[in-house]
């Protein structure tokens, strides 16, 4: 039985990854789940300099999910290279570093620093709804997305995954733009922009007013978008959005995802990823599936 999948020449032992921002650098979860069982760890976004993030409250629970407005708090690339990348070297999972920036120059600065690091791929966050400048602005206009992808690809020495925002009119156009810019893969969906109001206090629950909506409640939207993009572009698609179980993961793969990421559910059960990896194998056994690649995009 084969559970390996390949993205841009990088072979993952299974299609299960973590979604950026929900798993720290891997270290935070390492005492609660076995990172060696994962296809890849995708780290929290890292920028060229430390970012303080947004004011609190940054978290709000909503029906079947949550809103977050962290604002990409991170220590910057220097600390990341010194502390977080070495930690992951002890594990057999692939290492994918998520990159964020407020300008094209900032993205390029991080990509250049990561070029000679022992990592496997970079995921470019052009879709964070919680940062005022840059970020999402690069991910909501197809021409801008194609342009930033081209500029990153011109300097990158590792495969590039462009992480797409669902907060667009036509997700297929965005997938095509990333592909035209030379992206090796796309990942989607980032969070949906949402809002929650405390009706007793007549106040926004989040200090940032708006936040990114994630969790099982968003899954049908994500499956549809992954299907749309996977059936439009030729590059691999990494699917995510509310995945909680192996069945959810398989649904995304049948929609066309080559690999899948678990996000919010890491908070609910730190072993979600590991259970999904086991559950996919069990599903393959039960259905007599020899190769996981046979189910990618198989929905009729």
């Amino acid at each position, binding site marked *: 039985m084969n559970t390996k999948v390949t993205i841009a020449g990088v072979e993952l032992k299974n299609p299960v990854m973590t979604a950026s*921002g*929900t*798993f*720290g650098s891997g270290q*935070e*979860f390492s*005492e*609660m789940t076995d990172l060696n069982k994962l296809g890849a760890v995708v780290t*929290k976004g890292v920028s060229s300099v*430390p*970012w*303080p*993030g947004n004011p*609190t*409250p*940054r*978290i*709000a*629970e909503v*029906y*079947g*999910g*949550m809103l*977050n407005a*962290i604002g990409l*708090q*991170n*220590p*910057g690339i220097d*600390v990341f290279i010194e502390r977080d990348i070495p930690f992951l070297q002890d594990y057999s999972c692939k290492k994918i570093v998520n990159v964020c920036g407020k300008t094209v120059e900032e993205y390029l600065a991080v990509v250049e620093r990561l070029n000679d690091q022992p990592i496997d791929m970079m995921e470019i966050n052009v879709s964070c709804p919680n940062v005022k400048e840059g970020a999402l602005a690069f991910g909501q206009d197809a021409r801008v997305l194609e342009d930033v992808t081209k500029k990153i690809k011109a300097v990158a020495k590792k495969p590039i995954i462009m992480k797409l925002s669902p907060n667009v009119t036509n997700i297929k156009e965005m997938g095509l733009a990333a592909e035209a810019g030379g992206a090796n893969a796309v990942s989607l969906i980032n969070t949906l922009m949402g809002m929650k109001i405390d009706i007793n206090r007549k106040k926004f629950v989040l200090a940032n007013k708006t936040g990114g909506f994630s*969790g*099982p409640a968003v899954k049908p939207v994500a499956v549809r978008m992954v299907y749309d993009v996977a059936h439009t572009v030729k590059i691999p698609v990494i699917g995510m959005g509310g995945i909680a179980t192996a069945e959810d993961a398989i649904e995304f793969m049948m929609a066309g995802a080559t690999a899948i990421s678990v996000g*919010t*559910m*890491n*908070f*609910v*059960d*730190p*072993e979600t990823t590991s259970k999904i990896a086991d559950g996919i194998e069990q599903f393959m056994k039960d259905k007599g599936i020899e190769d996981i690649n046979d189910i990618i995009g198989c929905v009729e």
Partner: protein
Amino acid sequence: MSKRKEEATVYSQEMLTDGIYSLWIETSMASQAKAGQFIGVFTGDGTKLLARPISICDVKSDENLLRMVYRVSGGGTDLISKLKKGDKVSVIGVLGNGYEKAACGYNEESSNCELIPLNKSLEGKKVIVIGGGIGIPPMLLAAKSLQCEKVMVLGYANKNTFLKDEFDKLGQVYISTDDGSLGTKGTVIDAIKENGVSGDVIFACGPMPMLRGIKAYAKEHGMKAYISLEERMACGVGACLGCVTKTVNKDHHTHVNNTRICVEGPVFDSEVVDI
């Protein structure tokens, strides 16, 4: 001392006063739990996904029992309040640093920093243990853990107190109430002043205005104060950076003067946090 999620069994649950519940659970985490640490309690309802961070009020480690006293403040805690003896409840823990680590200046990443047992570092000192509202429960385990001289100051909304009898067994207790129906009318600081309470160190948990008052009081009197903060949390293990508090100096995780309450806290030296 590893963190983990496990299924605990409800040992008992009772309402102490209107909306305040005492929940004992059977869990292997009991033997690891320290004063000031907390547990994430899951509701078991798929529409309310995130763990509710609840402070540890007491432990009986030889019986694997851990107690949480909490207020029903929404749909999630309402579900938790309906748990009965024998019910299963998923919990994640043990989370946070606790008073001992905070008071010894210990942090997760400074490997050369040895943890001095709290009672050794406080030998010959007197601790003022202060709790306000739903910040009172963790102070019970804190007070029980202290072998040095101590005095307790508890702030309630009104005379409908909870846990007061248990604090009374541990030493002198002073009360303040918002409406003056019991003890000093006003804040815990008012009760300290009215009763001439003195000490060397403060351990406190309560609402933010109270903690700000304690920070100012400690500064004015040249005392150390260790205060426990709360914030909306998601992961509880330091990954999501949802629950930060501002710090005076650069925090050691992100170096941006925003430190994680769930890992570096919830208990902080009041001089370290910018509240």
